[in-house]
């Protein structure tokens, strides 16, 4: 027997089938196009932003990400089920397309039939398995949503509709196949290539051929109608994520990771800064808002949400969507809520995990920019004071700028104004310059460099805050004035290499300053020292073994993907790292980012105490970090949570300096 099947078996391939079928398809496509256009009109309310450059690269990356389901599968469980369902459903879609192609085009027009022979056997088997996998995964996700009910998972009516629709499409597919097989294939070897279909065929064997034929034709049309409704429903339900998420992979920001738009402060035409209402957002912001599938991964990882603050990144994105599609006149800040806006630590946990690559953090910063630059509003008077201090003394602590380099005197360090011939500029940052606890980090780092025979220079009183905290609080104006002063100094002295101990300075000088004209390599000390040790330029004495846990700072980890260098340094010093459950990409912020180091934490519980608790759970006596902000937070958090007897915060530089061979 020939290894194939009659495509329009029992349906008929004449005009009586084709005309209504294609009319229905046309209708569904029209509904789809109209719905899509309605949404595109809303996206177009946003400002322009360039996301169409370098299209070949954008498309290749997007196709890979969609097909491989990389981002969604990062969460084991629901993510895995989604990935498997996707592949199943996608193969069924491809299979259906092949049928259409052969039955309505290549066969009638050119007499080409390709669904036959060995290819047909493989085709049958693959589609059969795909259908089964899709049904099992869908059932699993149904159980999760309606019985296990994970905390925070919001279920709306459309979820039920989508679940039912998909399940009925898949099941009718098998019943149609079963009915056809019961009449034409049962008992042949061919049937073995459709094992699941065969099960359905056997179940239907008792009802007789005419019932099988009636059932087949009835369900065939129902299946068609449902599949077309699926297409028509796409723009109107969460199903649109098939398109929006895929498109978002294309529209992803190709700039440096975690970058913000550097506002043009000289623009005399600009009447408004930051985002106050819908029109201030970019089309990509609105598109993002429409691309959210409420998977709540962002919310699950948000340190503000986890410590009972009112913020949820998911909620914010959905509020923006509601504004865009329902209340376009609404004030963004009023709708999202000011406590919510100020609670964000810009830790990027939301953005890093989002399967739809929604850009949450820049939206929070845009909302803040409007509050600060247009309304002069801050989350508290202490913040106004800190910002004012930064303006006057170049540091948020309000200490005399003239004393910025005092800590370095005993190490024989000179400011570049006295001696610009150095191997590297150490950009110290405010906390390592002025804060007693963090000065130890600065001293340790310089001691390590000197042990490696390097001549370190600092800017001393000419250094100003890098501007990161005030920038993340929305004060782009102050950030840019601080940045241009720093850049001018750095360029004046012809600096060739910059190293920072603060990941915030590192990210700001290394990436953000590029927009303002700085073009000098910037490294964080973990990477820098790792290289010195690797080259043998820096030598440690015999390692002494110790146990610690390591906290990935957001701006080193998620913003710059530096996870291994700090761990290698700890290992070289003899340390074994007992990881916290939330580590690396999933690290839990210390609470200091987004300028929050300057803000009193009045809402909910303290983020730093929660993180200290996670460190304490590992049982290690040391909570090691590589960021002065984290250090400041942990000094307080460990005490606040009552772990001071058992847990000590320490910076990697402090551990390494203890390992230097005795001279």
């Amino acid at each position: 027997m020939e290894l194939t099947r009659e495509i329009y078996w029992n349906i008929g391939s004449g005009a009586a089938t084709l005309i209504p079928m294609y009319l229905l398809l046309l209708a569904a496509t029209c509904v789809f196009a109209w719905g899509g256009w309605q949404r595109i009109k809303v996206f177009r309310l946003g400002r322009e932003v360039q996301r169409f450059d370098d299209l070949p690269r954008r498309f290749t990356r997007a196709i890979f990400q969609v097909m491989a389901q990389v981002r969604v599968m990062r969460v084991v469980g629901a993510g895995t089920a989604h990935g498997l369902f996707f592949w199943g459903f996608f193969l069924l879609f491809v299979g259906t397309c092949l049928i259409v192609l052969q039955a309505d085009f290549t066969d009638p027009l050119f007499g080409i039939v390709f669904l036959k022979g060995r290819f047909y056997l493989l085709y049958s088997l693959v589609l059969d398995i795909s259908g089964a996998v899709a049904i099992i995964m869908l059932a699993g996700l149904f159980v999760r949503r309606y019985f296990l009910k994970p905390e925070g998972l919001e279920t709306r009516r459309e979820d039920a509709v989508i679940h039912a629709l998909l399940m009925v499409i898949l099941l009718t597919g098998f019943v149609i196949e079963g009915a056809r097989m019961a009449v034409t294939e049962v008992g042949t070897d061919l049937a073995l290539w459709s094992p699941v279909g065969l099960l359905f065929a056997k179940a239907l064997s008792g009802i007789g051929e005419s019932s099988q034929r009636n059932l087949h034709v009835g369900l065939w049309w129902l299946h068609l109608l449902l599949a077309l409704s699926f297409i028509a429903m796409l723009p109107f339900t969460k199903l649109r994520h098939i398109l929006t998420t895929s498109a978002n992979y294309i529209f992803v920001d190709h700039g440096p990771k975690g970058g913000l738009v550097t506002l043009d402060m000289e623009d005399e035409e600009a009447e408004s800064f930051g985002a106050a209402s819908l029109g201030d957002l970019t089309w990509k912001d609105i598109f993002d808002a429409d691309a959210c599938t409420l998977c709540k991964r962002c919310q699950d990882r948000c340190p503000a949400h986890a410590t009972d603050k009112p913020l949820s990144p998911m909620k914010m994105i959905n509020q923006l969507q509601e504004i865009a599609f329902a209340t376009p006149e609404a004030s963004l800040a009023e709708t999202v809520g000011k406590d919510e806006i100020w609670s964000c630590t810009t830790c990027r946990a939301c953005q890093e995990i989002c399967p739809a690559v929604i850009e949450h953090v820049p939206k929070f910063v845009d909302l803040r920019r409007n509050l600060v630059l247009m309304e002069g509003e801050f989350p508290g008077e202490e913040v106004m004071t800190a910002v004012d201090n930064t303006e006057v003394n170049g540091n948020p602590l309000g200490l005399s700028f003239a004393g910025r380099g005092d800590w370095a005197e005993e190490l024989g360090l000179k400011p570049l104004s006295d001696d610009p011939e150095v191997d590297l500029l150490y950009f110290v940052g405010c906390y390592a310059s002025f804060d007693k606890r963090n000065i130890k980090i600065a001293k340790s780092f310089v001691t390590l460099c000197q042990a490696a025979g390097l001549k370190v220079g600092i800017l001393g009183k000419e250094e100003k805050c890098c501007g990161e905290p005030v920038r993340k609080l929305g004060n782009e104006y102050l950030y840019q004035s601080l940045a241009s002063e720093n850049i001018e100094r750095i360029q004046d002295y012809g600096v060739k290499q910059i190293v920072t101990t603060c990941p915030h300075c590192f990210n700001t000088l290394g990436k953000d300053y590029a927009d303002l004209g700085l073009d000098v390599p910037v490294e964080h000390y973990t990477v820098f020292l790792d290289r010195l040790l690797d080259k043998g330029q820096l030598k440690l004495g015999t390692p002494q073994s110790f146990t610690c846990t390591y906290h990935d700072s957001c701006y080193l980890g998620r913003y710059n993907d530096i996870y291994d260098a700090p761990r290698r340094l700890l290992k070289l010093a003899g340390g074994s790292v007992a990881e916290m459950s939330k580590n690396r990409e999933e690290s839990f912020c210390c609470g200091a980012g987004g300028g929050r180091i300057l803000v009193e934490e009045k809402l909910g519980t303290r983020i730093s105490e929660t993180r200290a608790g996670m460190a304490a759970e590992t049982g290690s006596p040391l909570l090691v970090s590589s960021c002065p902000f984290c250090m400041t937070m942990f000094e307080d958090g460990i005490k606040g949570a009552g772990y001071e007897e058992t847990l000590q915060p320490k910076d990697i530089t402090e551990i390494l300096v203890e390992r230097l061979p005795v001279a």
Partner: protein
Amino acid sequence: MKILVCIKQVPDMESRFKLNAKGTWYNDQDLAWRMNEYDEFAVEQAIQLREQLGEAEVVVLSVGPDRVKEAMKKALAMGADRGVHIQDEASYEKDPFQIASAIAAYAGDQSFDAIFTGMQSQDRGSAQVGVLLAGMLGLPAVTTIVSFEFDNGTATVRRELEGGLKAQVKLAFPALLTCQLGLNTPRYPTLPNIMKSKKKELVSIPVADLLKVEAVTVTDTIRFPEKKGGGLVLEGDIAEITEQLVSILKEKTTVLK
């Protein structure tokens, strides 16, 4: 209504102060400058009054070298309408009488309805310029105000007295008011206002054109306060330190007698 606000630029109080060569004032190297804190309250109150009235002009005035324009620009960014800079490289050598005289020489024929000043400057702290100016212009003055209301040509203010007492004073304008901490929270300039302030009028008048009087007081010498013996930290368990504390109180003070 025409409102004058007199402000001073002072070093940030966290700065590291050194004396100048003559030993009569501080050296102005390595200092971070800002608007005198009390003057910020004055600027804020003047702008609030203008906002209340709708129609009014706020003129900000400062005496000193060119750098004081930075403080004036902040006042303009907060919302003052224009600035008058009395250019004086050696303003630190002038006594409060001379400073008040120079301002009075400018303001004399300008018929200001209200003048706001800080209660005192953070660096010299004489608290005299405001009241002397009022005297020279023949205006009533109320010092150290902590609240301000204005209705129908009459201001109702509360001023701080010793011992936590406050006095409520009503006065008709024109008048001069000196502003104390607690009066208001100075606003943070918005970016559009910073941009606008760059185009606002800021005229400089040489001090010699206005100042025709000699000083009545002269700073002979200034010095840092002597370092006195530090505090005493008691250590040990609570019972022990309580005992120590009681015996110190008994021996060295009269509180337990």
